[in-house]
């Protein structure tokens, strides 16, 4: 009896901690939707009244819509390309004996730890000396540099999660390397591929520093938002935009989690 009371108390302690923890993470974010419906250009309490004005303004701002489209274009392209590259690289390092495997992985992972501002300057210098004009393309290439290592990390952990004899079995049963990939590796790696697509898309979507250095005349969403901050009357519109992005993220993450859970339980399958 006593013991169970003790456990109950401790659980209560943890529960309080958990609530504080969640509050710390989510309260600041929740200010976005809250103030996006507030009928005032000043982001301050007390709240004035309910309005959809900022959403309307957002929907009618062509600069914002252009930036959003640019970001989606860059994000989607970067996500697909870096996931393809990350998957193939992960397959290479997990499935084949090759000389210099360690250093190769190390070099591919380096962009994860180089400060973005350094990389941004380096890429800008490179683009200038190479005579490449800045555009969405340069932003995309910069984002690839960031996203490939992330994709590779996700895919390596996924590919190491199932036995390579699965692929050998496919080869043994008559498939060439390509067939074995499509009929076995790909379906088994699918949850990882979805995770990689979402992760890299998100990274590209909210990346600011590289985009700042590498942007030409077309801007991405983070650059647009940053430029809006100089005009206080525009701030509520940015909040409305933020609320929309938040909602979209929520939907996407829920979807990703659903895919992950409905994915094949490879771990339990390979254990006998």
């Amino acid at each position, binding site marked *: 009896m006593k013991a169970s009371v003790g456990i109950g108390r401790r659980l209560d302690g943890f529960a309080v901690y958990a609530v504080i923890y969640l509050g710390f993470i989510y309260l600041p974010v929740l200010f976005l939707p809250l103030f996006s419906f507030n009928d005032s250009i000043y982001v301050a309490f007390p709240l004035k009244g309910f309005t959809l004005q900022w959403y309307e303004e957002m929907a009618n701002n062509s600069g914002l819509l252009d930036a959003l489209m640019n970001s989606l274009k860059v994000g989607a392209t970067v996500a697909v390309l870096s996931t393809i590259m990350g998957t193939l690289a992960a397959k290479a390092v997990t499935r084949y004996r090759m000389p210099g495997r360690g250093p190769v992985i190390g070099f591919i992972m380096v962009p994860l730890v180089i400060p973005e501002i350094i990389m941004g300057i380096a890429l800008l210098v490179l683009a200038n000396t190479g005579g490449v004009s800045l555009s969405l393309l340069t932003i995309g290439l910069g984002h690839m540099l960031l996203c490939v290592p992330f994709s590779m990390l996700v895919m390596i952990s996924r590919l190491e999660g*199932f*036995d390579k*004899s*699965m692929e*050998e*079995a*496919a*080869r*043994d*049963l*008559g*498939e*060439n390397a390509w*067939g074995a990939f499509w*009929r*076995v590796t790909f*379906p*088994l790696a699918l949850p990882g591929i979805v995770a990689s697509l979402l992760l890299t898309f998100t990274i590209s979507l909210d990346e600011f520093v590289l985009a700042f250095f590498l942007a030409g005349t077309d801007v991405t969403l983070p650059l647009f938002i940053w430029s809006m901050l100089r005009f206080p009357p525009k701030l509520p519109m940015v909040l409305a935009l933020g609320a929309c992005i938040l909602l979209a993220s929520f939907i996407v993450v829920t979807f990703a989690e659903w895919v992950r859970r409905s994915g*094949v*339980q*490879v771990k*339990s*399958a*390979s254990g*006998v």
Partner: protein
Amino acid sequence: MTDEAIISFSEVSKHFGSVVAVDNVSFEINRGEFFSLLGPSGCGKTTLLRMLAGFESPTSGELFLDGQAMSSMPPNKRPVNMVFQNYAIFPHLDVRGNIAFGMRKSGLSRAELDAKIEEMLELIKLAGFGARGANELSGGQRQRVALARALIKRPKVLLLDEPLGALDKKLREQMQIELRVLQQQVGITFVFVTHDQEEALTLSDRIAVMEKGVVLEIESPTKLYESPRTHFVADFIGTMNFFEGSVREVAAGAVTIDSELLGEVRASGSGPEFTSGSRVVVAIRPEKIQLSFEAPENVANVVEGRMGPSAYLGDRSHFYVYLPQREDPVSVALQNLERVKDQDRRSDQAVWLNWSEDSVVLLAPK
């Protein structure tokens, strides 16, 4: 290459960096036989199997399948199929999908393929399990699906990489029998890799014993057990008592040996040819030794010792008998043909061991 050989290894070596996994191996496997590669882990048996499957290629030498050189042929083109150690059942497919996996390019109609799958399910005694998910199968069922998936391709040779290792003892013994029956039913050559000598003895027509990348002996189970030609094989397969000695006399069909521990040992002429004066190892199986509590008369080979610990195993008993001047006890196995009473197994009493001339195996010293 003889007519009945289906697989032929010709001076095959495989190096992984500085490690020599397979060292200049040449032998043949006959059509329709159940052939086992037996040896401790790291002896190169799995590497040989993977070379047959096409997952490794020899560093030097060539292997032939039905007369055709295999080295440059990718795994998907070879007329062999493999049952993997952990079965490698595709978790995203059901039983039917797993069995049908290799039949994509078979050119069979849907109905023909369905009939074939039903036939395979029947063969592996899993009729009605076609729609089961891969994750809903037990270890034994997974093994059967892996077998069916390979056999439906009608390979010339089926490769099995320790397929029973993951099963518990009872199931393993049951699967051994089923495997043997299945092999006779389908008439396909089986190449079976195992480190379990009992399993190899039970299943095989012939066994290749490997150590450190070299094939030591290729023989039938009986020959390997009863007349091993190398110290390693004698030691690795079953239990063996070893004694050193030197040849005193070689007569027609009989050898007399002076052993430091056993005294005079007489052996019928099995083993390599020895000349008088040469050192030999006398090897005797535990179950070939008679144990008595009084000095036996009129026997060829006898030695007195003291009873050490014993182990009662139900159908048989193991005794360990100490000889003077020898630290390791002699191992003796007796069938418990009559009801055993506890007083029979008192330790420390004097016992006499004797064995027939015919049961002695003579080996070259290590």
